[in-house]
């Protein structure tokens, strides 16, 4: 049961650096406006009057579960929240605190606290998503402000956020950063990176074309003629003129079909 017409929101931090809660505070331009559109019932980091029992429309959870107390908090938050959002890499995947899960906690404890740490409430650091179901995940260390704002706006509007169509590399390229993948192109990459550590071979820009895809949506796809190897050939290769492309080429699929 919500207490007002505005959505009731809670922001919770488990074990972590509070970077994702700080990113919320870092939305300086939108903070007051957004906070006016929702009712923040629980945010220990930023307010002193916190409701510990009310039902929440949206709960944001940051950090890893590294203590029994964290787990209890997380379970309670899941019960209270209609939507639960994991913010930050720690909550989604475990992040840095989960980096040394190959070592037992006692060893780590001895390393840091010497002999005086037996009283510690400590369990293997695991992401919050391991324990309870989440509705949305916003990874990133810390999460990106605009992604958070986009999610909040979508939730306030009663929809789900639209996923970005930009490739991961987009922003890096527009900043004209040198990319190690592009320094190692073609033969160099084949020779030096046979295991594809740097990812797949870069596809020349010319090989990509906007083509009609399923559901009438336009897709950026590889044009089959220039593609390296024929296994990338899309099905139903017809140009806008209805011509079947590659009909004269050696097509392993058609050969297999003809043989059966």
């Amino acid at each position, binding site marked *: 049961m919500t207490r007002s017409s505005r959505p009731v929101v809670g922001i919770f931090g488990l074990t972590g*650096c509070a970077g994702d809660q700080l990113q919320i505070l870092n939305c300086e331009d939108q903070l007051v406006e957004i906070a006016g559109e929702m009712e923040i019932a629980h945010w220990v980091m930023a307010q*002193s009057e916190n409701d510990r029992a009310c039902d929440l429309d949206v709960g944001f959870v940051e950090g890893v579960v590294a203590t029994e107390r964290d787990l209890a908090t997380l379970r309670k938050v899941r019960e209270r929240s209609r939507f639960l959002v994991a913010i930050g890499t720690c909550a989604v995947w475990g992040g840095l605190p989960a980096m040394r899960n190959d070592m037992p906690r006692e060893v780590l404890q001895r390393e840091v606290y010497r002999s*005086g740490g037996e009283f510690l*409430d400590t369990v293997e650091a695991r992401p919050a998503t391991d324990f309870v179901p989440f509705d949305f995940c916003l990874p990133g260390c810390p999460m990106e402000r605009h992604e958070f704002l986009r999610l909040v706006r979508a939730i306030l509007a009663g929809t789900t956020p639209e996923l970005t169509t930009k490739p991961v590399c987009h922003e890096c390229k527009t900043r004209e950063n040198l990319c*190690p993948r592009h320094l190692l192109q073609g033969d160099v990459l084949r020779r030096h990176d046979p295991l594809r550590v740097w990812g797949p071979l870069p596809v020349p820009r010319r090989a990509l074309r906007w083509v009609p895809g399923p559901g009438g949506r336009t897709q950026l796809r590889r044009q089959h003629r220039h593609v390296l190897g024929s296994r990338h050939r899309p099905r139903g290769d017809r140009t806008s003129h209805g011509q079947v492309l590659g009909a004269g080429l050696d097509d392993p699929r058609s050969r297999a079909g003809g043989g059966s």
Partner: protein
Amino acid sequence: VTTARTVTIPHLGRVEGHGGITVRIAGDRIEDVNMDIHEGSRYYEALLKGKHFLEVQGIITRVCAICSANHTVAALNALENALGIEQSERIHKLRGLLLLGSMIESHSLHVFALALPDFLGHDSIISMAKDHPHEVAFALRLKQLGNRIQDAIGGRAVHPINTLVGGFGTIPTAETLRTIRSELEEALEPLMDLVDLVAGLDVPDWAAEPSIHVALRPYEDAYRLRGVAICTSRGDEFPITDYRDVVREFTVEHSHAKHAALASGESYMVGAMSRLTLWGHFLGGRAPHRLRAPVRRRGGATTSCSTTGPSWWNSSTPWSAPWSCASCSPPCPGQPARCSSIRSARGVASPPSRSRGAPCSMSTSWMRTDWWCRPTSSPPPPRTWPTPSATCASPSSACSPRTASSTIAN
């Protein structure tokens, strides 16, 4: 009737991290106050073991988000010391700017978003915005400015990525730096107005004052965040590499966070207050004037920052440090002879000479570094180590650094 009871505050609001307070009261006497930090342990010291040195800053910066730039610079300084890399002037200054950006951001967050609502009777900065819209708007703008500086130098506002061992991935352009400068100049005037608001707050008279302040001796005769030695308000001075001897860490049963005390067992204070107490006389620009100018309290009475500040702010000219040397008249604010004897006993009269050494083999073509691994024919001169005179009989530059301040005080 003596009744024993316990007051427990499970979660402290408006604090970064997780903490609570337990107070044990017997009758009308408080027996014990425990601050419990129940943040889970992340074991950063153990996480670092076995990692490549280039990964260290990326790990260490995630200790804390609010002060991530400071952790980064500390880690880089340690690594560069270990590798014998000396920072070029440009790298040193840019890192200083990064630290200042971090300080602007974290202090405006702390003062306006975390602390001030308590004093003004509000729940949070968001509810404070209704009563103090201009102040909150400016506070957020100031915070944003700090973030923008970190963004320009460190690559992003939280957990910088542009900082590397020996340099930066990308050096910010002159245009960026000029923009930052003009924005900082713009923010100065409204900031001075906010000093009134903060200085006019009522500080409860039962608030305990720390007995010992600890801050780093600045690397030059100015108010700086980075330093070359650990100084206490008692007049002790220790080389930074001895920090494990100066500060002892120990665990307490009620808290996940380790406690720290001086080797003598006394608690001490660090941070902005301690820096101001020890090195406030180095403040330049308008800060010394503003500290002494009268401000109006919220009740209407007039006071000045110096009544709420350390007692030595009130003393008439010249500004005297709390550990002023007794053998001089008028008291000399330089380091007493004691610390120079400590220093010479420890053999740190000059900074350890760091040679450039053999060319290192870690050059990576896609990292643009400033001088990293580039042999130079004339290495930059080593940073001057402030040498206090042993007797203070003749005021040297290190012994009386306050000549400029004393003329403008009052």
